[in-house]
């Protein structure tokens, strides 16, 4: 069980696609920093693979900073929940 921290916008950077090609059902994905712009990608090829990850999280502060919003199926979390998540999973990768 790996927790994947995504930090780059998938419109500019391939990290989200590359990460999605490697996650399993037990893994978790956190969208933070510019990666929260992924939530504006409804028309992009990576959007459905991303939202079908059951443990998909997005950082509240980064969403608010950017003037966007999250759809219902995304778990919006703050930093305390992020800290707790890193302990719930076995290890953490920052992409």
């Amino acid at each position, binding site marked *: 069980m790996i927790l994947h921290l995504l*930090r780059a916008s998938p419109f500019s950077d391939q990290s989200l696609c590359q990460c999605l090609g490697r996650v399993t059902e037990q893994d978790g994905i956190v969208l933070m*920093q510019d990666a929260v712009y992924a939530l504006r990608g409804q028309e992009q090829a990576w959007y459905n693979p991303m939202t079908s990850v059951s443990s998909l999280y997005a950082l509240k*502060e980064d969403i608010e900073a950017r003037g966007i919003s999250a759809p219902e199926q995304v778990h919006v979390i703050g*930093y*305390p929940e*992020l*800290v707790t998540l890193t*302990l719930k999973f076995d290890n953490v990768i*920052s992409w």
Partner: protein
Amino acid sequence: MATFSILVTSAPFDTQGSNSALKFIQAALALGHSVKGVFFYQAGVNNASAWLTPPADELNLSVAWRALKAQGVELHVCSTAAARRGLLSEQDSQEQGYSGHNIQPPMTASGLGQFMEMLDVDRVVQF
């Protein structure tokens, strides 16, 4: 309660990494966890500059890192990575014959071996 070490590899201001690291550490401490230390590497070594001088309406990272040190979080910077980027401790600066040094307390100039010491924690998180 758990133990953490934090690896910062992103440059201050240029990217949001330092900001995210600060908020993560503050949250971890507030939850009662222990943060053993922060290790600055790659472009992250720029966080160790004693002379970061942002405009008054922007985050002053020097103040923020100092506050963490006061809470017991060790702040280590890789001196080889730092020297490549123009950041020197007093000793390294004297050896080079430079006129000053910009790695100053609360930052400690260390080697990568220090980071190996910091792996003895429950989680390492990289920003």
